[in-house]
Protein backbone atom coordinates (compact mmCIF):
# COMPACT_ATOMS: atom_id res chain seq x y z
CA UNK A 1 0.00 0.00 0.00
CA UNK A 2 3.01 2.24 0.45
CA UNK A 3 3.30 2.46 -3.32
CA UNK A 4 -0.19 3.78 -3.60
CA UNK A 5 0.58 6.38 -0.98
CA UNK A 6 3.70 7.59 -2.78
CA UNK A 7 1.79 8.07 -5.98
CA UNK A 8 -1.32 9.71 -4.68
CA UNK A 9 0.23 13.16 -4.62
CA UNK A 10 1.41 13.13 -8.23
CA UNK A 11 -0.68 10.68 -10.23
CA UNK A 12 -4.25 11.03 -9.05
CA UNK A 13 -6.09 13.41 -11.28
CA UNK A 14 -9.75 13.51 -12.16
CA UNK A 15 -10.56 11.74 -15.43
CA UNK A 16 -12.17 14.97 -16.56
CA UNK A 17 -8.72 16.57 -16.92
CA UNK A 18 -7.71 13.94 -19.48
CA UNK A 19 -10.97 14.31 -21.38
CA UNK A 20 -10.51 18.09 -21.55
CA UNK A 21 -6.95 17.71 -22.88
CA UNK A 22 -8.17 15.09 -25.35
CA UNK A 23 -10.84 17.53 -26.55
CA UNK A 24 -8.27 20.31 -26.97
CA UNK A 25 -5.99 18.01 -28.96
CA UNK A 26 -8.95 17.29 -31.24
CA UNK A 27 -9.71 20.98 -31.69
CA UNK A 28 -6.05 21.86 -32.36
CA UNK A 29 -5.70 19.02 -34.89
CA UNK A 30 -8.86 20.20 -36.61
CA UNK A 31 -7.42 23.72 -36.78
CA UNK A 32 -4.20 22.32 -38.29
CA UNK A 33 -6.23 20.47 -40.89
CA UNK A 34 -8.29 23.58 -41.68
CA UNK A 35 -5.09 25.55 -42.35
CA UNK A 36 -4.50 23.15 -45.23
CA UNK A 37 -8.18 22.85 -46.16
CA UNK A 38 -8.58 26.59 -46.70
CA UNK A 39 -5.25 26.72 -48.52
CA UNK A 40 -3.66 29.43 -46.38
CA UNK A 41 -0.19 30.38 -47.59
CA UNK A 42 2.95 32.22 -46.56
CA UNK A 43 3.83 33.34 -43.06
CA UNK A 44 0.23 33.03 -41.88
CA UNK A 45 0.19 29.33 -42.79
CA UNK A 46 3.59 28.72 -41.23
CA UNK A 47 2.92 30.50 -37.96
CA UNK A 48 -0.45 28.77 -37.54
CA UNK A 49 1.00 25.32 -38.27
CA UNK A 50 3.87 25.82 -35.82
CA UNK A 51 1.64 27.32 -33.11
CA UNK A 52 -0.85 24.44 -33.26
CA UNK A 53 2.04 21.95 -33.33
CA UNK A 54 3.69 23.49 -30.27
CA UNK A 55 0.40 23.65 -28.33
CA UNK A 56 -0.39 20.01 -29.07
CA UNK A 57 3.11 18.86 -28.16
CA UNK A 58 2.98 20.90 -24.96
CA UNK A 59 -0.35 19.43 -23.87
CA UNK A 60 0.79 15.85 -24.55
CA UNK A 61 4.08 16.26 -22.69
CA UNK A 62 2.71 18.26 -19.76
CA UNK A 63 -0.49 16.33 -19.01
CA UNK A 64 -0.47 12.95 -20.75
CA UNK A 65 3.21 12.31 -19.98
CA UNK A 66 2.83 13.86 -16.49
CA UNK A 67 5.75 16.23 -17.02
CA UNK A 68 3.86 19.01 -15.25
CA UNK A 69 4.06 17.01 -12.03
CA UNK A 70 7.65 15.73 -12.25
CA UNK A 71 10.44 17.36 -10.31
CA UNK A 72 12.14 20.16 -12.21
CA UNK A 73 15.55 18.48 -12.38
CA UNK A 74 14.02 15.63 -14.40
CA UNK A 75 11.94 17.95 -16.57
CA UNK A 76 14.95 20.07 -17.50
CA UNK A 77 17.13 17.00 -18.12
CA UNK A 78 14.51 15.86 -20.64
CA UNK A 79 13.42 19.16 -22.19
CA UNK A 80 16.72 20.99 -22.68
CA UNK A 81 18.46 18.49 -25.04
CA UNK A 82 15.59 18.54 -27.60
CA UNK A 83 15.60 22.35 -27.46
CA UNK A 84 19.28 22.26 -28.45
CA UNK A 85 18.11 20.46 -31.61
CA UNK A 86 16.71 23.85 -32.68
CA UNK A 87 20.30 25.09 -33.00
CA UNK A 88 20.96 22.16 -35.32
CA UNK A 89 17.84 23.08 -37.31
CA UNK A 90 19.15 26.64 -37.62
CA UNK A 91 22.56 25.46 -38.83
CA UNK A 92 20.96 23.22 -41.45
CA UNK A 93 18.67 26.03 -42.66
CA UNK A 94 21.79 28.10 -43.43
CA UNK A 95 23.47 25.10 -44.99
CA UNK A 96 20.57 24.19 -47.26
CA UNK A 97 20.00 27.79 -48.33
CA UNK A 98 23.66 27.94 -49.35
CA UNK A 99 23.41 24.61 -51.21
CA UNK A 100 20.32 25.85 -53.02
CA UNK A 101 22.11 29.08 -53.93
CA UNK A 102 25.13 27.25 -55.38
CA UNK A 103 22.90 24.84 -57.29
CA UNK A 104 20.94 27.70 -58.80
CA UNK A 105 24.12 29.60 -59.61
CA UNK A 106 26.13 26.78 -61.16
CA UNK A 107 23.70 24.09 -62.37
CA UNK A 108 20.40 25.69 -63.28
CA UNK A 109 21.51 29.10 -64.58
CA UNK A 110 24.72 27.75 -66.11
CA UNK A 111 23.12 24.88 -68.05
Amino acid sequence: MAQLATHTDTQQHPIRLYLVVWGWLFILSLCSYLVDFFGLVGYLRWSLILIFMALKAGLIIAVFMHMAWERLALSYAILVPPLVLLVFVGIMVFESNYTLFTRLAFFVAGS
Partner: protein
Amino acid sequence: MNEVAPDTLNPKIGRAPGWQGIVADWSSDQRAFENVSWGKAMMWIFLLSDTFIFGTFLISYMTGRMSTTVPWPNPSEVFALEIGGHHLPLILIAIMTFVLISSSGTMAMAVNFAYRRDRKKTAILMLLTAVLGAAFVGMQAFEWSKLIAEGVRPWGNPWGAEQFGSSFFMITGFHGTHVTIGVIFLIIVARKVWRGDFDDGRRGFFTSRRGHYEIVEITGLYWHFVDLVWVFIFALFYLW
Protein backbone atom coordinates in the same frame (compact mmCIF):
# COMPACT_ATOMS: atom_id res chain seq x y z
CA MET B 1 9.78 -5.18 2.95
CA ASN B 2 7.43 -2.51 1.84
CA GLU B 3 8.76 -0.23 -0.84
CA VAL B 4 8.70 3.25 0.49
CA ALA B 5 9.86 6.18 -1.56
CA PRO B 6 13.07 7.61 -0.10
CA ASP B 7 11.53 10.98 0.57
CA THR B 8 9.01 9.42 2.93
CA LEU B 9 11.87 7.72 4.80
CA ASN B 10 13.78 10.93 5.09
CA PRO B 11 11.54 13.97 5.08
CA LYS B 12 14.58 16.26 4.85
CA ILE B 13 15.12 15.18 1.22
CA GLY B 14 11.81 16.53 0.07
CA ARG B 15 11.36 18.32 -3.17
CA ALA B 16 12.42 21.94 -3.02
CA PRO B 17 10.64 24.28 -5.39
CA GLY B 18 12.11 26.22 -8.31
CA TRP B 19 15.81 26.82 -8.92
CA GLN B 20 16.65 25.84 -5.36
CA GLY B 21 15.22 22.42 -6.09
CA ILE B 22 17.21 22.03 -9.30
CA VAL B 23 20.45 23.09 -7.65
CA ALA B 24 19.76 20.81 -4.70
CA ASP B 25 18.97 17.88 -7.02
CA TRP B 26 21.95 18.23 -9.30
CA SER B 27 24.52 19.17 -6.70
CA SER B 28 24.01 16.14 -4.53
CA ASP B 29 25.16 12.65 -5.31
CA GLN B 30 22.50 10.19 -6.49
CA ARG B 31 19.63 12.51 -5.82
CA ALA B 32 18.77 13.99 -9.21
CA PHE B 33 16.02 11.48 -9.84
CA GLU B 34 15.35 10.52 -6.24
CA ASN B 35 11.64 9.81 -6.42
CA VAL B 36 11.68 8.77 -10.05
CA SER B 37 11.84 5.00 -10.41
CA TRP B 38 14.57 3.42 -12.54
CA GLY B 39 11.95 2.16 -15.00
CA LYS B 40 10.54 5.60 -15.63
CA ALA B 41 13.99 7.22 -15.84
CA MET B 42 15.17 4.57 -18.31
CA MET B 43 12.10 5.06 -20.49
CA TRP B 44 12.67 8.81 -20.51
CA ILE B 45 16.32 8.34 -21.48
CA PHE B 46 15.27 5.98 -24.27
CA LEU B 47 12.68 8.48 -25.49
CA LEU B 48 15.30 11.22 -25.42
CA SER B 49 17.55 9.14 -27.67
CA ASP B 50 14.58 8.45 -29.93
CA THR B 51 13.90 12.19 -30.07
CA PHE B 52 17.35 12.66 -31.52
CA ILE B 53 16.84 9.95 -34.15
CA PHE B 54 13.49 11.39 -35.26
CA GLY B 55 15.04 14.86 -35.03
CA THR B 56 17.85 13.98 -37.41
CA PHE B 57 15.38 12.35 -39.82
CA LEU B 58 13.21 15.45 -39.89
CA ILE B 59 16.21 17.77 -40.18
CA SER B 60 17.69 15.80 -43.08
CA TYR B 61 14.27 15.85 -44.76
CA MET B 62 14.16 19.64 -44.26
CA THR B 63 17.68 20.00 -45.68
CA GLY B 64 16.82 17.90 -48.73
CA ARG B 65 13.60 19.78 -49.33
CA MET B 66 15.08 23.26 -48.91
CA SER B 67 18.14 22.65 -51.04
CA THR B 68 16.53 20.99 -54.06
CA THR B 69 15.92 23.11 -57.14
CA VAL B 70 13.12 20.78 -58.28
CA PRO B 71 9.59 21.54 -56.99
CA TRP B 72 8.48 19.42 -54.01
CA PRO B 73 5.34 17.28 -54.56
CA ASN B 74 2.30 18.91 -52.93
CA PRO B 75 1.50 16.66 -49.90
CA SER B 76 -2.01 18.04 -49.67
CA GLU B 77 -2.78 16.55 -53.10
CA VAL B 78 -0.57 13.46 -52.82
CA PHE B 79 -2.54 12.35 -49.76
CA ALA B 80 -5.97 13.36 -51.05
CA LEU B 81 -8.77 10.82 -51.40
CA GLU B 82 -12.00 10.65 -53.37
CA ILE B 83 -14.78 9.86 -50.92
CA GLY B 84 -18.37 9.71 -52.19
CA GLY B 85 -17.47 11.75 -55.24
CA HIS B 86 -15.83 14.49 -53.17
CA HIS B 87 -12.18 15.33 -53.61
CA LEU B 88 -10.80 15.72 -50.09
CA PRO B 89 -7.18 16.90 -49.72
CA LEU B 90 -5.11 15.30 -46.96
CA ILE B 91 -8.17 13.54 -45.53
CA LEU B 92 -6.47 10.21 -44.83
CA ILE B 93 -3.73 11.87 -42.79
CA ALA B 94 -6.32 13.89 -40.87
CA ILE B 95 -8.22 10.72 -39.95
CA MET B 96 -4.97 9.00 -38.93
CA THR B 97 -4.15 11.98 -36.72
CA PHE B 98 -7.52 11.86 -34.96
CA VAL B 99 -7.21 8.10 -34.45
CA LEU B 100 -3.76 8.44 -32.90
CA ILE B 101 -4.80 11.33 -30.65
CA SER B 102 -7.77 9.29 -29.46
CA SER B 103 -5.46 6.42 -28.64
CA SER B 104 -3.39 8.82 -26.55
CA GLY B 105 -6.56 9.87 -24.73
CA THR B 106 -7.54 6.29 -23.90
CA MET B 107 -3.96 5.54 -22.80
CA ALA B 108 -3.85 8.52 -20.44
CA MET B 109 -7.08 7.30 -18.86
CA ALA B 110 -5.69 3.76 -18.59
CA VAL B 111 -2.72 5.09 -16.60
CA ASN B 112 -5.10 6.93 -14.31
CA PHE B 113 -7.20 3.83 -13.67
CA ALA B 114 -4.05 1.77 -13.12
CA TYR B 115 -3.09 3.98 -10.19
CA ARG B 116 -6.63 3.57 -8.87
CA ARG B 117 -6.08 -0.18 -9.19
CA ASP B 118 -9.11 -0.63 -11.38
CA ARG B 119 -7.75 -3.61 -13.28
CA LYS B 120 -10.69 -4.15 -15.58
CA LYS B 121 -10.97 -0.55 -16.79
CA THR B 122 -7.18 -0.29 -17.17
CA ALA B 123 -6.97 -3.42 -19.32
CA ILE B 124 -9.98 -2.44 -21.46
CA LEU B 125 -8.62 1.05 -22.08
CA MET B 126 -5.20 -0.33 -22.95
CA LEU B 127 -6.71 -2.79 -25.40
CA LEU B 128 -8.77 0.03 -26.91
CA THR B 129 -5.53 1.98 -27.30
CA ALA B 130 -3.97 -1.03 -29.02
CA VAL B 131 -6.95 -1.34 -31.38
CA LEU B 132 -6.70 2.34 -32.34
CA GLY B 133 -2.94 1.95 -32.83
CA ALA B 134 -3.50 -1.08 -35.05
CA ALA B 135 -6.07 0.91 -37.05
CA PHE B 136 -3.46 3.62 -37.53
CA VAL B 137 -0.90 1.11 -38.81
CA GLY B 138 -3.57 -0.36 -41.10
CA MET B 139 -4.29 3.04 -42.62
CA GLN B 140 -0.58 3.61 -43.02
CA ALA B 141 -0.26 0.30 -44.87
CA PHE B 142 -3.10 1.46 -47.16
CA GLU B 143 -1.33 4.79 -47.71
CA TRP B 144 1.97 3.07 -48.52
CA SER B 145 0.33 0.62 -50.96
CA LYS B 146 -1.48 3.46 -52.70
CA LEU B 147 1.69 5.51 -53.14
CA ILE B 148 3.75 2.52 -54.25
CA ALA B 149 1.05 1.69 -56.80
CA GLU B 150 1.24 5.28 -58.05
CA GLY B 151 4.96 4.87 -58.61
CA VAL B 152 6.54 6.46 -55.54
CA ARG B 153 9.94 4.95 -54.78
CA PRO B 154 12.76 5.95 -52.42
CA TRP B 155 14.65 7.17 -55.52
CA GLY B 156 11.84 8.89 -57.41
CA ASN B 157 8.18 9.71 -57.88
CA PRO B 158 5.91 10.99 -60.66
CA TRP B 159 5.42 14.52 -59.27
CA GLY B 160 8.73 16.20 -58.53
CA ALA B 161 11.74 16.13 -56.22
CA GLU B 162 13.19 12.63 -55.92
CA GLN B 163 13.95 13.07 -52.22
CA PHE B 164 10.21 12.98 -51.48
CA GLY B 165 10.03 9.19 -51.56
CA SER B 166 13.06 8.50 -49.41
CA SER B 167 11.98 11.05 -46.79
CA PHE B 168 8.43 9.71 -46.77
CA PHE B 169 9.30 6.02 -46.44
CA MET B 170 12.05 6.66 -43.90
CA ILE B 171 10.08 8.94 -41.57
CA THR B 172 6.67 7.29 -41.71
CA GLY B 173 8.23 3.84 -41.82
CA PHE B 174 10.23 4.46 -38.66
CA HIS B 175 7.18 5.94 -36.96
CA GLY B 176 4.96 3.05 -38.08
CA THR B 177 7.50 0.60 -36.65
CA HIS B 178 7.27 2.42 -33.33
CA VAL B 179 3.47 2.22 -33.38
CA THR B 180 3.59 -1.50 -34.17
CA ILE B 181 6.00 -2.20 -31.31
CA GLY B 182 3.79 -0.08 -29.06
CA VAL B 183 0.70 -2.12 -29.95
CA ILE B 184 2.51 -5.35 -29.06
CA PHE B 185 3.80 -3.80 -25.81
CA LEU B 186 0.27 -2.60 -24.93
CA ILE B 187 -1.27 -6.03 -25.51
CA ILE B 188 1.36 -7.76 -23.36
CA VAL B 189 0.94 -5.34 -20.45
CA ALA B 190 -2.87 -5.27 -20.77
CA ARG B 191 -2.92 -9.07 -20.47
CA LYS B 192 -0.81 -8.93 -17.32
CA VAL B 193 -3.08 -6.26 -15.83
CA TRP B 194 -6.22 -8.23 -16.67
CA ARG B 195 -4.81 -11.42 -15.14
CA GLY B 196 -3.83 -9.57 -11.98
CA ASP B 197 -0.10 -10.26 -12.25
CA PHE B 198 0.71 -6.99 -10.56
CA ASP B 199 -1.42 -7.81 -7.56
CA ASP B 200 -0.29 -11.38 -6.91
CA GLY B 201 3.35 -10.70 -7.81
CA ARG B 202 3.49 -13.41 -10.47
CA ARG B 203 7.01 -13.95 -11.81
CA GLY B 204 7.78 -12.37 -15.15
CA PHE B 205 8.77 -9.12 -16.80
CA PHE B 206 7.88 -6.12 -14.65
CA THR B 207 5.50 -8.10 -12.47
CA SER B 208 7.70 -9.25 -9.63
CA ARG B 209 7.05 -6.27 -7.41
CA ARG B 210 3.66 -6.65 -5.86
CA GLY B 211 1.14 -3.89 -6.27
CA HIS B 212 3.41 -1.98 -8.61
CA TYR B 213 1.38 -0.65 -11.50
CA GLU B 214 4.00 1.78 -12.73
CA ILE B 215 4.67 -0.24 -15.88
CA VAL B 216 1.32 1.02 -17.17
CA GLU B 217 2.57 4.57 -16.86
CA ILE B 218 5.87 3.61 -18.53
CA THR B 219 3.98 1.99 -21.40
CA GLY B 220 1.93 5.18 -21.55
CA LEU B 221 5.07 7.32 -21.80
CA TYR B 222 6.15 5.32 -24.83
CA TRP B 223 2.72 5.52 -26.40
CA HIS B 224 2.32 9.27 -25.87
CA PHE B 225 5.78 9.76 -27.35
CA VAL B 226 4.66 7.95 -30.51
CA ASP B 227 1.71 10.33 -30.69
CA LEU B 228 3.98 13.27 -29.94
CA VAL B 229 6.30 12.41 -32.83
CA TRP B 230 3.27 12.19 -35.11
CA VAL B 231 2.33 15.77 -34.14
CA PHE B 232 5.66 16.90 -35.59
CA ILE B 233 5.47 14.66 -38.66
CA PHE B 234 1.92 15.86 -39.35
CA ALA B 235 2.98 19.51 -39.16
CA LEU B 236 6.34 19.33 -40.89
CA PHE B 237 5.81 16.64 -43.50
CA TYR B 238 2.12 16.75 -44.42
CA LEU B 239 1.18 20.40 -43.84
CA TRP B 240 4.38 22.05 -45.12
